């Protein structure tokens, strides 16, 4: 006990004084109000207003505690999981209301009725550049089907410039599922995972990019996406589509539920997702990174054992850097007993204040969470509607 206390006392804290945390939370309150209030006022429904106010208070409380306690990962994970759960809670009732089912018919797909998803980006880029064809006939908003790709592309580039691979722990609408299931057990049942599996997302990226370019179809969406089953999928009307739906179910249960529970890692994100692989290359153009101070590091390897996306290994630790797949989730920073892991801004001194880098990164990440997490208000609204009317539609 004394040894633990000694370690804890040596650990530098990222905690902020209450007044400072409150002051730094105020801009986020303004940003969140600016982003979310226009949607609420248009609803003309008192339930929507209540849902919006509760959501605004909730997310700003989370942000305050993130700053105040210095525990970035703990509160990021809460928000990340809420966003992932909110998406199907809002999206599936919307699908049922609009199309009568969460299953898409050929007519809906060919008319561009499927919702646009950022995960399609790696497959769309080459056909769009070479043949000027958007191979995913989707929409982002019902009123702007044809501009969906352009808007998504701009948002994606902006987000990548802001947080890089941080997308996968702060912005992604699906990663929260992995995050949730990976946190259910206190200790992992499977500890030793062959390091070669970390290359599977890159292999998957290469395969789906070239296959999509030759077939002019979004191969990942048709065959490999584990999250189809939690959002929308082609109706199983024949052998082919039945097999596809079967694959989606198996991938979701295996990669998103079972393996994260057994390993306490985000298996889908770290060992499968091709979008994450593409995003990791964009880490190079982003200014934020996670580093390890080798003077402070006691080589306990706690960070290696807990990194949810397998983004640290022996050699990277020796160089004081994470691998390119680091999602900047801050789990290693929160968990390091010596406070050796820290956020860093590229180009600045390694001895520069880690707190400043952390606050700047948290701001960028949280604002993107707000932009992509608007579903929270809608999901809350649908829950209230279920309670008061018995229907989420």
């Amino acid at each position, binding site marked *: 006990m004394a040894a633990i206390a000694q370690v804890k006392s040596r650990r530098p804290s990222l905690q902020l004084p209450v007044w400072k945390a409150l002051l730094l939370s105020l801009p986020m309150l303004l940003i969140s109000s600016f982003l979310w209030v226009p949607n609420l006022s248009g609803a003309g429904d008192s339930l929507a207003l209540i849902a919006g106010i509760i959501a605004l208070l909730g997310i700003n409380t989370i942000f305050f505690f993130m700053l105040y306690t210095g525990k970035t990962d703990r509160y990021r994970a809460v928000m990340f999981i809420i966003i992932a759960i909110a998406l199907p809670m809002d999206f599936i009732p919307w699908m049922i209301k609009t199309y009568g089912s969460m299953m898409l018919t050929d007519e809906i797909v060919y008319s561009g009725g499927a919702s646009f998803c950022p995960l399609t980006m790696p497959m769309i880029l*080459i056909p769009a550049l*070479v043949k000027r064809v958007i191979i995913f006939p989707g929409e982002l908003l019902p009123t702007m089907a044809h501009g969906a790709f352009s808007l998504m592309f701009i948002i994606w580039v902006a987000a990548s410039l802001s947080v890089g691979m941080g997308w996968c722990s702060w912005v992604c609408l699906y990663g929260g599922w992995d995050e949730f299931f990976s946190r259910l057990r206190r200790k992992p049942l499977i500890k030793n995972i062959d390091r*070669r599996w970390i*290359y*599977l997302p*890159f*292999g*998957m990226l*290469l*395969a*789906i990019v*070239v*296959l999509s*370019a*030759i077939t002019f179809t979004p*191969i990942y969406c048709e*065959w490999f996406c584990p999250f189809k089953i939690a959002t929308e999928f082609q109706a199983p009307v*024949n*052998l*082919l*589509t039945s097999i596809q739906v079967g694959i989606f179910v198996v991938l979701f249960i295996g990669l998103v539920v079972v393996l994260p529970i057994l390993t306490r890692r985000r298996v889908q994100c770290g060992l499968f997702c091709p979008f994450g692989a593409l995003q990791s290359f964009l880490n190079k153009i982003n200014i934020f990174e996670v580093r390890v101070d080798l003077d402070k590091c006691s080589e306990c390897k706690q960070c290696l054992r807990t990194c949810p996306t397998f983004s640290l290994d022996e050699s990277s630790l020796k160089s004081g850097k994470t691998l390119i797949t680091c999602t900047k989730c801050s789990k290693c920073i929160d968990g390091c007993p010596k406070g050796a892991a820290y956020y860093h801004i590229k180009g600045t001194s390694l001895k520069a204040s880690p707190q400043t880098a952390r606050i700047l990164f948290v701001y960028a990440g949280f604002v993107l969470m707000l932009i992509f997490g608007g579903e929270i208000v809608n999901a809350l609204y649908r829950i209230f509607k279920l309670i008061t009317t018995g229907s989420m539609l």
Partner: protein
Amino acid sequence: MIQGFLLGLANGTTCLVFCIPVLVPFLLGEGKSVPNNLVTLSKFLGGRLGGYLLFGLLAWATGNFLSGAAGLQIPAYAIAYIGLAILLLTVGLRAPAPPASACVVKSAPAALRRWPALLPFGMGFLAGLKICPPMLLAFTGAANSGSLLGSLLLFLAFFLGTSIYFIPLSFLGAFARLPDLRIVGRFAAVIVALYYLFSGILMFAGGV
């Protein structure tokens, strides 16, 4: 012949895109130097030329017996897809050779020693059998040429026109010296193989 060359030149990028799923994972998975990759690429292109000439033959035959050839096409493509998948699986799942394996290779039976060298040729041949939109155009032109020689020459010219775009691919292997990229190439080969295997089986099963 000029028509075939221009057709190949105009559509070479599309052909490249059709062949990349086979060639890139293979080159990355093999992890050889740039000169060695040029040899591999040559073998691949040689195989592809064989496939194209076979198509020239088929186009000529189709021109004469249009109705008869239609029934054979689907099983032929299905076999080509499955064969391609098996070759890619061989590349993806084959254990990488250890650095000091020269003696092991030397002691292997002669037929087995030759097998890895034949892989790119076989893959090129099967890739050449794949139908892609420009190939269909060339096929139509060759079928209409009326003579066997004219059909073969058109496909030879088509092959030359498209092959120009393949040369930069040989430099991919330079990156493959890194063991990491070799593993990526192997994973990609297995995923692409599974896709073609499934497509081939579906073709045999008569679609969906």
